[in-house]
């Protein structure tokens, strides 16, 4: 009975079937990682990457509920608006970061504490 196929089947049986909670847990982990990046990173661009991770986590939630929660299109439309705002936010934030770098020669968020020189 111990054919390779049966061993593989036995191994795969350890993983439960994917349902809504799996997607939500992935998004929760992404959210926590993004939160950690925002809280600890000193480089402003890495803080931005943390923000992108958080936005992606929220988007996974929206799309997952659009699929499983029965609200067919509304969740995906909300996710599209999140992506639009993320694009605008990235453009603005990177422009600000470039300006800060030209002015202070650093993008370390700890050292940028003055509104003007």
């Amino acid at each position, binding site marked *: 009975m111990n054919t390779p196929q049966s061993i593989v089947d036995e191994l795969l049986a350890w993983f439960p079937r*994917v349902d809504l909670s799996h997607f*939500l847990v992935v998004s929760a982990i992404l959210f926590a990682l993004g939160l950690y990046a925002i809280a600890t990173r000193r480089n402003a661009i890495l803080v931005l990457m943390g923000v992108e991770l958080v936005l992606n986590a929220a988007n996974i939630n929206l799309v997952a509920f659009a699929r499983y929660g029965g609200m067919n299109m509304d969740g995906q439309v909300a996710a599209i608006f999140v992506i639009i705002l993320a694009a605008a936010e990235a453009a603005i934030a990177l422009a600000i970061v470039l300006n800060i770098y030209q002015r202070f020669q650093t993008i370390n968020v700890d050292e940028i504490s003055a509104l003007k020189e």
Partner: protein
Amino acid sequence: MQLTDIVFYALALMTICSACVVVFSRNVVYAAFALLFTFSGVAGLYVLLFADFLAVTQILIYVGGILVLILFGVMLTSKVVSVDMKTGTIQAIPALILAAVVGGTLAGIFYATWKGTAAPALGPETTTPGLGTQLMTSYILPFEIASVILVVALVGAAMTARRSRRKANG
């Protein structure tokens, strides 16, 4: 255990591992490139959730737009020549506790509340016409506001990133 489940576990593993690289890597360039795999993994999750248009949008905007923008930011604000691309972390322990508590709470609530919610039977259908109809009917006002926001944001970003005239002359 079906093929979609295997694909889901692979995509989730890829997304979370590359997100860990983004968060814990000390090299900014490594973090930026790991973000590529995170975004691609999220796009794959969208495909598994039958959101085909969103998956393509994710690839186009995040991978093609935002990631390139971030890479430009990395290259323009790091001293490439002197290999000053390393970066440190501050308050790692409190932040780790905070992130673990928040993430654990969220994941626990999600798992306890939505465990075993099976997907409704939905045939393979494309979402693009439905999304277009929604955007042009129910969501017409947010759609227009989003277009205005994009114009304002891009013009503002171009103005902000430009060197000031005074500084360029001086």
